Each structure stands twice: as C-alpha cells, then as structure tokens.
C-alpha cells in the first residue's frame, strides 16, 4: 500500500494546477454565467487530458482535484470521465474520438427519482452539458447502453444552483438506436469509479473553500488582531482541515481500490463520496461564516465555489444516499 504520488502524478498535478490557474480564473466563471462561449479557450487546453478519462483512476483523480479547485466549467467530466468508460465497456466506435477530445459525449441515466441507477424510464434528468455534446450515452435497465447523436434529442435546460455545470432533461423514448448489453460487473465498476472521481473533484472544491477561509483568517483583523488568532476560529478551521484530510485520504484509497478492482471497492467509493460531501458542506458553511458579511456578497468569489460544492454533493447521489448504500452493504 502506498499513498504517495508517483513522479508522473506529481508532474500531472503541477501541470494541471498551472494550467487551470492561468486558464480558469474566477472572472471566467462569472463570464460563463451569461456567455457559454467564454469557455472555448479553456476547453482547448482541457481536451488534451481527455485520455485520462479511461486511464488509471488514481491519475484521473489527481487531475479532477485540480479541476474542482477552480470549479472549471466544460464537458470534460461528462464526456471523458462519465461517458468514456461506458463507451469503452461496450467497445463503441465513438470511444476513440471521445477520449482524444475530438467529440463530446454525455450520459443520461437518472429517471424521475433522480437516482443514478439503470432504469426503464424514458425521460432522463441531470444530463450534464448536453448542449455541447455530440453523443448521448443512455444507460438503461438490463443494464444496457444506447448511444445516440445529440441532434436526435432535444435537451431542455434545468435551472440549477451551479452555472458551471449546466444540466438538462431529455426524452429518449422515441429515439431508435442499437442497444448494447452491459455486464453487471461493468456497471458496478463504472458506478464505483464515477463515485470516486466526483468525490475527487469535490475534494478540490472543498480545498479551495478551505484555503480561502484560512487565508482570510490570517489577514482579516478585528479587535486589532487577526481573526485567526481567536480560538473559536482556530478550532473551526482545525475541524474543517480534519474533514478535508479525511475526504482526501478516502478518495485516494478508493481510487486505488478502483484501479486494483479490489473487493473493498464499492464500500470505499461510497465512503469517498460521503466523506467528500461532508467536507464540501462544512467548508461551504463554515467557510462563509469565517468570512463574515463580505462572504455573503455576490461580488465575493466564495459563492462560485459554494455553488459547485453544493451541486456536486447532490450529483451522483447525495451524501445520505451513499450512507444508505453503505448500510445496505453492512447489513447484507
């Protein structure tokens, strides 16, 4: 067992960090709220990493943590991370264009209940970045997979708290297309991987919120001293740091179990998503508390990350849903 990053992973992390710092400032996130085309230059840079989508989960998580840190908008997560492995599992001809970044795909899974599990419903919710997709990968009961061109469906935007990741509703009922069978193992592997990687991204966003709060605590003065010298603030930050470190380690462990197809994989993935949800929530709530009034303003950047953290916490199953799945495993 080794939790340390390989030199390649260190390099990936540094490259991604530098690229996002330069290409994805918060001004871009704000511009993107009203103008979707604002992300065109960023997408060019991110596209080069699309191959990570079907590579080792531990590498992919390194990249996604950096992506979450800047709340990067764009279809990388939907396309390379979620759709890529499904296309790979059914050996679909669109795999190559998707993981080379030439084509964009997204997945349609959740039905009316919002749960990301195969089902027979024809109206799908939470279809990420469908407006930018060339292909919609539909996961249905069986489990089975269909891949349809986006122009055969009509994505309807759903209003959401997080503008960095637009979601859509689509009706796939009338679309004729070939259906590929997916083994139960392949579905479970996809699901555990998806839970793990979104958790990695959430850890990145939570870390951003934490860093902002820590920095602010060191510079903001009240009663002539930095607020970070008050024990109430120190203890809050210590608790946030623990939640964040716990989630970070849980994600790393889960990514290793995914790569090793280990027996502990499903539990580890639920733990990672739940721990990341807990960290993201705490860093949002206490992060804004530490900022005081300034944090509550639209002008301050904090809410951009609180929005991403909150939306991600509910994406692919809220924290409580993951706890319930863990309970099912513990009681089975």
């Amino acid at each position: 067992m080794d939790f340390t990053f390989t030199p390649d992973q260190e390099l990936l992390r540094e490259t991604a960090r530098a690229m996002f710092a330069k290409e994805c400032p918060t001004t871009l996130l704000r511009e993107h709220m009203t103008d979707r085309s604002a992300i065109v230059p960023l997408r060019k840079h991110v596209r080069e990493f699309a191959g990570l989508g079907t590579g080792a989960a531990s590498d992919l998580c390194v990249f996604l943590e950096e992506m979450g840190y800047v709340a990067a908008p764009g279809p990388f997560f939907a396309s390379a991370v979620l759709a890529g492995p499904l296309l790979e599992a059914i050996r679909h001809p669109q795999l190559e264009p998707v993981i080379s970044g030439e084509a964009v795909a997204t997945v349609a899974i959740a039905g009316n209940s919002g749960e990301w599990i195969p089902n027979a419903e024809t109206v799908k919710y939470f279809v990420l970045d469908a407006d930018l997709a060339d292909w919609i990968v539909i996961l249905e009961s069986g489990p089975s997979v269909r891949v349809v061109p986006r122009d055969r469906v009509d994505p309807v935007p759903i209003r959401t708290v997080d503008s960095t990741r637009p979601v859509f509703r689509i009706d796939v009922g009338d679309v004729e297309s070939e259906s590929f069978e997916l083994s139960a193992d392949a579905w479970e592997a996809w699901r555990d991987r998806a839970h793990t990687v979104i958790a990695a991204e959430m850890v990145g966003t939570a870390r951003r919120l934490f860093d902002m709060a820590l920095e602010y605590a060191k510079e903001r003065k009240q009663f002539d001293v930095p607020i970070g010298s008050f024990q109430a603030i120190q203890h809050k930050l210590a608790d946030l740091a623990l939640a964040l470190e716990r989630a970070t380690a849980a994600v790393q462990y889960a990514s290793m179990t995914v790569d090793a197809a280990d027996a502990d994989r499903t539990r580890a993935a639920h733990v990672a998503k739940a721990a990341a949800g807990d960290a993201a929530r705490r860093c949002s709530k206490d992060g804004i508390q530490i900022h005081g009034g300034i944090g509550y303003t639209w002008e301050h950047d904090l809410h951009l990350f609180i929005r991403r953290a909150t939306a991600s916490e509910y994406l692919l199953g809220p924290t409580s849903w993951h706890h319930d799945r863990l309970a099912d495993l513990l009681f089975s």
Partner: protein
Amino acid sequence: MQLAWSAQDEAFRAELATFLDTEAPPEAHGYDFGESRPDEASIIPDWLRAWQAKLFDNGWMIPAYPPELGGRNSTPIQTLIYLEELSKRRIPRATHFPGYAIVAPSLLEFGNDEQKKLVPAAIRGDTIWCIGMSEPNAGSDLAGLQTRAQLFDDHFVVNGQKVWTSYAMIASKCFCYVRTDPSAPKHRGISLLIIDMDTPGIDVRPLRHINGKADFAEVFFTDVEVPRENLVGELNGGWMITQGSLAHERAGLWVDSVSRLEQTVFALVDLAKRTGHDLDPVARRRIAEKYELAASLRALGYKGFASFAQGSSAPEHSYMKMATSEAGKAVFELGMELCGPFAAVTDPELGDENGRWVNMFFMSFANTIAGGSSEIQRNIIAQRILGLPRK
C-alpha cells in the same frame, strides 16, 4: 499510489501472523482493554508480563528497534503492518505503555550511556514505569508544573505533588518532570528526573477511575533525595523532552483506535439486528455514517504513515488522536441508543448487553482528555499545521 503491499512486506506479515497464531497465549486473543482490565491488585496480569517478555525475546516487541531492544530493524511500513495484525486479533503488547512507548524512546534520544542501559528492561516490561507530568494545577498547561527539585552538590531534593499518574502504585520508577529554576520563564526551568519509587518520602495514593477501578494515583513527594546522575538531558532542559515524549506516545496509537472503531461499528450492526433496528432507516444510516468515519480515518492514518515512511513529518498524525478519540465517544453513544431504555442498566440479570455500552462510553471519556485534550489538539493543528497566529 498502489493498493498492494510489497512482497517483502507480505512476507513480514506472514511471519508475524504465524508467530502470533502459534505463540500468543489464549488470554491474549480478543483481549478487551476496556472490559477485562483487572482490579487494583493486578493491573498487569502474569500471563501478559510473560507475553511482553516473549515478544521482546523474539524481536516482536518494537519491530523497528534492533534485536537487543526487542526488535528486528523493520521499516515504518512494517511497523504499520505489525500494529494492524495485533489489533486485528486484539492481541495486546502490554497493558502498561509508559515504559516502552515513552521512557524508552526518550532515553534513547536524550539519556546518557548509563541511562540507556535502563531501556531494554523498560521495553521488555521488567521495569514498570510511571510518567509524572500532570499536577493538580498543571494539566493542559504542563509547563505550569510546581513540583520543586533543589540541587545540592550531588543530589536533588524533590517536594511537590503529581496527579493522575497511571500505574504509580505498581511502578518501580517514575519519569518525573520537576521545576529546577523557579526564577526562569516557565518553559525554561523544568528538568526531567528518574525517580525510584521506593525512595523515602514518596507517598502514592491510588485514585479511582470513573469506572470504579484504580490504575492511576496521586503521588506526593516530601524531601525526596534523587541522585544527580538521575537527571535526564540538560539541567533546565526538560521542556524539549516533554515535546518529544508526547510525540512518541501518539505515533502508532491510531492503528489500534481505528481498528477498535471499525470493530465497534460491526458490533453496532449486530446489535441493531438483535434489537430489531436493522430495518430502521435512521439507525442504519447512522451506523453507516460511523463506518464512513472509521474507514476514512484508516485511509488518513495510512496516508500519514506513507509520508512518514518517506521521511516527511506527516501532519496526518496530529489529526488522528483528536478524530479517533472523539469518534470513540460517538460510537458507544450510538450503541447505548440502540439498547433503548435498558442502556444505562448494568444489572446482568437483564441481559448481557446491559452495561457494556454504557461502560465503554464512560471509558471513552478518558481519550479526549488524557495525552493532550481534544481542545489542545485543535490548538496544535491550527497553530502548528495551519500556521494561524497565536494570541
């Protein structure tokens, strides 16, 4: 990053497993520190003394140490494996940790050649040690200690009082922090002395724990003469050693705490099944939350060990004591809730579950106080790891 252990590490695990499975006495397997700790008279049962000596003689007491100190020069990762295998089987190394966990590493680092000779017996358990840090008015603020030691040519004369001194009633030596320069700033006037507990003028009065058993004590010193050569390290240089010896106490403790946490979560699952809570969605979810906590803390502990093994300082360890001790209280509390109205009943007539959870809950209070309280841990995290300003 990778999940698998190396072939050498797996071989180490296998060798240890065989030793534990064939050599550990029956009483050692599944030992429960909480429940089976014996009464006043025998804080360390005979079989456990013999087992500690056997671990030492076979190089399995502190694997990272050389053979003459009860080890086999193993790597940090192997130490982790070692601690895991013990806690998986709930096999204790000793009930009494000050000797091998605090005194030995401190003497190896700060002691002179003569004092280092005390180390093997401390690790083997042949000498029982107690740690005299806390005083009635110096707990978290350890540097506020007042026990005086005046130096006369070749000896010190000690006067004062220690409290909550674990094992003082059975210890033959005390690792005792004393004030040797009352005029210096409080951190600079402290020294560390080795005090023989049978020296005239020492009065040990056992104090009972919240669980009714006595394994700590008040210790009174009245004109106790201690030879000058029993000074460890520099005169007035004791503060540096306190910092080191608390770190020694903490290093591997989390492995056992986390294993215990996990085992308690599985016990909660069984309890829920027996009490009909297995279909209760609230109970199920709350148990799962505890599982998440235990599993993520284990990962955090591993991560810390990995960076420690590579020579970094591993801040993860600072999180582990606070997190595992707080989580400990929470799991036993949940167990009590699942027991329902009989949770606080300790009458064995009313079922064997009664009293178990409440006892464990009470016992778990100690961990967020002793060895640096949770509040002190948060201060350390905030100031030393996060770099927040001191007031």
